[in-house]
């Protein structure tokens, strides 16, 4: 009898415990991201801190490989009707995501929540707004910049980085050194075959990558990268490579970076997000600084943003969507963005994060970390530096890269190669547009 009673008390206690656990079980939200290495660890820290900060929601971060791998996984998941709640998708995915019909526009989520999105940095706001609406929320933001070896430049008699294409070539000639056997001991610079650089160099001259003002006034129907700005940018790189001022590193980002960090090349162009890696690899063996990309003398313009945004997917219960949105708000809050900036080299996405005293103190110690913000805020507010939108941007980038390879190999002139590439891109755009409309 007695034992029986204790047993029922025990059962009662367990039931109460279970009840509490059920009542308090946080709503689970999945977050797919493409941040590996140090950046991936920063994502994990951010998610952990968010989960610890409240009891209602629990975010589970999953690394899904590169951005492109992530899109493949997403495609499968969408067909299987089990998409994640949140996915980080690169800048180029904007139009395709907006037109997919699978996401909830971030502007709608913000409106329901009366959350003010006007604090997002202007250049990011301009890039990610399509028809006056945010579809995703910018999360990790970068741009392209010039890294230069201060010691090597000083040894060649230069005290500031080159500002124009012409100056850059002059610098590169003086920085290229050969030993007695005629083999190169130091290259002037290294710029790999990367379509994104060409896009940025076009914007830096005020040009367009696709027509209809970068696809911003109307849907893009053809590419514009084979215009004078694109030809100048590609020619600049091809000529320097063929003259032997730059090693031909192909498309390999790591080879390019290592050429610089090992001291083999004195300058290079890369995403601002590479700052941490460059710092780690240089390891204090020489002093380096960052600066805006050069442009042909007499042109005007500014670079566009790079990076990725967070998108929220449909077909989840309301409470889960609410949690997903809550996490996004946390991810772009000033304090979180400052930590993210410090850990990764991506710059903060909101004005409030730039104003934080912590941020200002950090920049005083690390002036290189501030360069991307200076670059992006100095970009003129026009449709060139707003960045191109087209459903097939990833293919367009591929076509540009193929053209660069042809020209570097000397199999075609820069103009020929770009015109051929443009033809392929235009076909791809036509196919995409007819499939969407």
């Amino acid at each position, binding site marked *: 009898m007695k034992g029986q009673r204790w047993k029922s008390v025990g059962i009662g206690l367990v039931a109460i415990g279970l009840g509490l656990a059920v009542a308090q079980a946080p709503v689970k939200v*999945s977050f797919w991201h493409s941040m590996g290495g140090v950046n991936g660890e920063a994502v994990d820290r951010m998610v952990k801190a968010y989960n610890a900060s409240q009891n209602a929601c629990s975010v589970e971060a999953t690394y899904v490989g590169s951005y492109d791998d992530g899109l493949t996984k997403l495609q499968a998941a969408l067909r299987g009707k089990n998409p994640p709640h949140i996915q980080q998708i690169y800048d180029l995915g904007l139009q395709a995501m907006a037109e997919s019909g699978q996401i909830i526009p971030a502007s709608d989520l913000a409106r329901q929540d009366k959350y003010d999105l006007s604090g997002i940095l202007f250049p990011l706001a301009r890039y990610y707004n399509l028809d006056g609406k945010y579809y995703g929320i910018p999360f990790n933001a970068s741009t392209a910049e010039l890294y230069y070896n201060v010691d090597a430049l000083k040894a060649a008699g230069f005290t500031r980085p080159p500002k124009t294409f012409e100056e850059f070539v002059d610098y590169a000639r003086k920085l290229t050194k050969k030993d007695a056997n005629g083999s190169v001991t130091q290259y002037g610079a290294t710029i790999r075959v990367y379509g994104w650089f060409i896009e940025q160099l076009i914007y830096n001259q005020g040009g367009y990558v696709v027509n209809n003002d970068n696809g911003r006034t109307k849907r893009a129907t053809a590419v514009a990268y084979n215009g004078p700005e694109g030809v100048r940018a590609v020619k600049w790189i091809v000529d320097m490579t063929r003259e032997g001022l730059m090693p031909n590193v192909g498309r390999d980002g790591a080879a390019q970076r*290592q050429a610089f960090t090992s001291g083999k090349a004195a300058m290079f162009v890369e995403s601002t997000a590479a700052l*941490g890696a460059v710092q780690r690899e240089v390891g204090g063996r020489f002093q380096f600084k960052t600066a805006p990309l050069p442009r042909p003398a007499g042109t005007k313009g500014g670079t566009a943003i790079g990076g990725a945004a967070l998108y929220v997917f449909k077909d989840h219960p309301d409470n889960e969507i609410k949690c997903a949105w809550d996490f996004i708000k946390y991810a772009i809050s000033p304090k979180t963005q400052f930590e993210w900036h410090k850990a990764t080299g991506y710059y903060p996405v909101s004005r409030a994060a730039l104003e934080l005293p912590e941020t200002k103190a950090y920049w005083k110690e690390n002036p290189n970390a501030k360069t991307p913000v200076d670059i992006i805020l100095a970009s003129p507010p026009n449709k060139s530096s707003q960045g191109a939108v087209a459903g097939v941007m990833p293919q367009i980038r591929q076509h540009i890269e193929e053209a660069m390879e042809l020209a570097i190999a000397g199999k075609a002139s820069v103009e020929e190669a770009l015109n051929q590439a443009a033809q392929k891109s235009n076909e791809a755009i036509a196919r995409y547009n007819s499939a969407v409309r």
Partner: protein
Amino acid sequence: MNASQPLPQTRKRRPWGEWILSYAGLTLLAVLVLMPVLVLLSASLKPPGDVFEYPPRLIPREFSLENYQGALEKAPLTRYLFNTLLVALGVTLGQLLTSALAAFGFARLNFPAKRALFLGVLGTYMVPWELTLIPNYLTISNLGLLDSYWGLVLPFLAGAFGIFLLRQNFLQIPEEYFDAAKMDGATPLQQLRFVAMPLARPALASLALLTFLNTWNQYLWPLIVTSAPTWRTAQIGLRFFLVDQEGSNYGFVAAGAILVLAPTLIAFIVLERAFVRGISVGGVKG
């Protein structure tokens, strides 16, 4: 089979010069082939700061296990490796079994529409695997097998290549062996088990090796059917260290790659022995 031709009793010794030359050439080629692995091994054993020193040196100035420690800490590589091993072994055993059964049927048994069926099997070999990615995903998803070992193993349990390879092999075994077995009252399954499989050992070993390596190196399929770390495989762990724009930590990449590479080398050494034995066994009987 060249059983009718007697082997020469004594072979003429090759002149020393030729011997040295051929060994020198082979050594050079072996070093060339092994170079990337040696560079990888060397990078994995360097202290993190030394990976990028210039000029690069093959033998580390100082040996350090820091990269291994780091790689194992930053990604659950031990769990991932265990998963990969289990999946690769499962797929290999499954492939050997299904391929041997199907191949024996196509090679030795008679049944209606045999030719058409075989052509159908071969036809699936022509379908690029990327095309089957989404349909396979949907099947696995509908079966509720996302995030499970079954999801990783099931789609690869049978393959046209294995069936084709073993069928061709079984067809080359002289009819007489099977006749003798039949005379002793062997069922088709027994003929497969005691006649065909032992004689086809080299083919089985190469199929096992290829399947094991292919499964071991899979990346995209495990990536799309698993999300929880519990079920993920080593190649995904390795990819985590390779960051595109932001810069990879090459010390970790090298250490991780060596850890992921080692089991495949062991598999090769083990199976190579079976491979060689298979040849000698077949030769003696022939």
